[in-house]
């Protein structure tokens, strides 16, 4: 133990003596460890994020997306079979057995003005089923009524972020906001939902009846919608719900068996697997970068250690003449190699920490430098030091003191 400590002291002195050389030597290790830490944090962050945000999207949700096709040649008349409509949603509501609720969804981003401020936010047109399907709740005020829905009344609900942006700290209920040339009355506020798994702020939005949206915010041909959202009757029924919805809408859109549909149906679970797959690919990619960097860095450390052994042959000779055994010498150079890689690891950890801090506070990603990442960084840098320090240490141990002392 004291042998390791005294070797460590010698190593630190050697390191401090040539700081630039040490820094350049450990650059590869730095990059490698930083990559390892970022990957690990990304993995940790993402799995908790995906898990947590499933709830935030509402459980058992099945999405139907429009896939507008612009293939060359065939052009369909606008408003023909292509596109999802209120009627599709109605048919699903009527015919699908494993579907509890169905809701339509249209949205755009518009400039909204109040007497207080002027801001861009998401404007959602939907129906009252949206709330149970997606798990949105009212914080204050009231929902719109079905009468208001039919009458395309200019009423809206507002999310906490949008409310702060547009009204500051004032209670928005009862106040008026303006989208384009039309004024709308805020009748209620939404409970905060936080971020969606796609990274957008679900609280920065204004919601209104879909009829009102189509009538005033963005006039649409027919009763088209961007998305239909349905909730399955249970988590285990989600796959059946997907199949039923698909078959119902295919029939309505008159798509022959085997032909590509002009829409896609996805369950929450499928989203999750897709996201996880992307994450996995990203992780593998980053880890490959890390492995290459660590290898190159390790070879760099080995190289500089071999040079050091040659430079310090005389010192090795002296130590051996005074009674150092080969393993004492080997230990010393191994400790020096590990000290170098540990320095690289520490710097890598610092760089990764800074990157994560930027991503977290600058970009709002839910990343965090977890204990697993730190343990991994420390472990990896020590391991690399041991592996690549072995050869130089062995060479140092094989120095012949007699010859080493003869060289002046």
């Amino acid at each position, binding site marked *: 133990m*004291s*042998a390791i400590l*005294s070797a460590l002291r010698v190593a630190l*002195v050697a390191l401090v*003596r040539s700081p630039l050389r040490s820094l350049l030597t450990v650059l590869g290790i730095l990059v490698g460890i930083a990559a390892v830490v970022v990957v690990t944090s990304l993995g940790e962050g993402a799995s908790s994020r995906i898990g947590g945000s499933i709830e935030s999207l509402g459980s058992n949700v099945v999405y139907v997306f429009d896939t507008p096709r612009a293939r060359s040649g065939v052009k369909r008349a606008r408003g023909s079979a292509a596109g999802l409509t209120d009627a599709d949603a109605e048919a699903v509501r009527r015919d699908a057995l494993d579907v509890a609720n169905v809701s339509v969804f249209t949205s755009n981003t518009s400039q909204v003005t109040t007497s207080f401020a002027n801001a861009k936010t998401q404007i959602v047109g939907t129906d009252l089923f949206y709330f149970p399907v997606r798990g949105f709740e009212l914080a204050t005020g009231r929902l719109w009524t079905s009468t208001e829905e039919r009458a395309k009344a200019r009423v809206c609900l507002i999310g906490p972020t949008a409310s702060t942006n547009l009204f500051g700290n004032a209670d928005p209920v009862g106040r008026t906001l303006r989208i384009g040339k039309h004024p709308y009355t805020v009748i209620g506020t939404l409970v905060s939902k936080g971020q969606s798994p796609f990274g957008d702020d679900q609280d920065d939005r204004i919601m209104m009846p879909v009829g009102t949206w189509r009538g005033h915010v963005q006039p649409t041909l027919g009763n088209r919608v961007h998305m239909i959202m349905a909730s399955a009757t249970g988590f285990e029924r989600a796959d059946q719900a997907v199949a039923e919805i698909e078959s119902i809408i295919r029939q309505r859109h008159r798509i022959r068996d085997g032909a590509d549909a002009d829409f896609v149906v996805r369950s929450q679970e499928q989203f999750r697997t897709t996201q996880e797959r992307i994450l996995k690919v990203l992780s593998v990619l980053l880890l490959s970068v890390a492995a290459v960097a660590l290898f190159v860095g390790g070879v760099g450390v080995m190289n500089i250690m071999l040079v050091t052994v040659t430079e310090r042959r*005389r*010192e090795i*000779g*002296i*130590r*051996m*003449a*005074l*009674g*150092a*055994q*080969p*393993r*004492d010498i080997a230990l010393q150079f191994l400790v020096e190699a590990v000290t170098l890689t540990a320095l690289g690891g520490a710097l890598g950890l610092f760089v990764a920490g800074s990157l994560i801090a930027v991503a977290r506070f600058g970009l709002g990603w839910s990343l965090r430098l977890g204990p697993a990442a730190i343990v991994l960084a420390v472990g990896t840098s020590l391991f690399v030091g041991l592996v690549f320090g072995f050869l130089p240490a062995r060479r140092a141990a094989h120095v012949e*003191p*007699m010859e080493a*002392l003869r060289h*002046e």
Partner: protein
Amino acid sequence: MAIASVQEEPFIVELEGVAKEYVSGPEIVHALIDVDLGIRQGELVAIVGASGSGKSTLMNLLGCLDRPTRGTYRLAGVDVTSRSSDERALVRNRLIGFVFQGFNLLARTTALENVELPLVYRGIGRRERRQRAERALEQVGLADRAGHTPSQLSGGQQQRVAIARALVTEPPLLLADEPTGNLDTRTSTEILAILQRLVFELGITLALVTHEPDIAECATRIVTVKDGRIDSDFRNPRVRDVRTKEA
């Protein structure tokens, strides 16, 4: 007076039929041929010879830095002839103190730490190491330079630190390889005085390799090596005592 009593002292070094051969290209070099040499405790033996005579080889064998091809070597009664490199390291640490021509101190390391080094490899605790190193530095008159690094010391002072380092383990045998080779005459005399004091006053055994006759004159016995053999071996009738009265 001290010299007369040497005959009865036990042998520290016993070489019997020692030979050393190197393979150099196509030839076999006979560096040492059938050497018998006994050194008793308290002797100050000068090993002299021209370069290439084999005296360096003899020195390396005595210092357990090298192994003989044939013959046996007993050091302080221990057969150290064919030991592994680990065991030879142990022998060097326990039984031998080295003083080199080029001082061979660790650069950027204080005098005290240099002197402590052999004790580090003996596994002695920090506090005792420090005490013994301080005592050794006192013996060579450098107690006040303990915190200096070699670059802050003169050549003579560096060699005195090296002597302290050789002494600190209290080895039965001290080996000095041209210890004054890098020093001017006045400093050489100082160093020789220290070495003589160690032998004549503390009873340490010293083998000193040199090619300068007036340094050999300081020894109690002069062994001449020539062409790999011991050419002559006689007791010096007129030891040049360079010890001064002061200190």
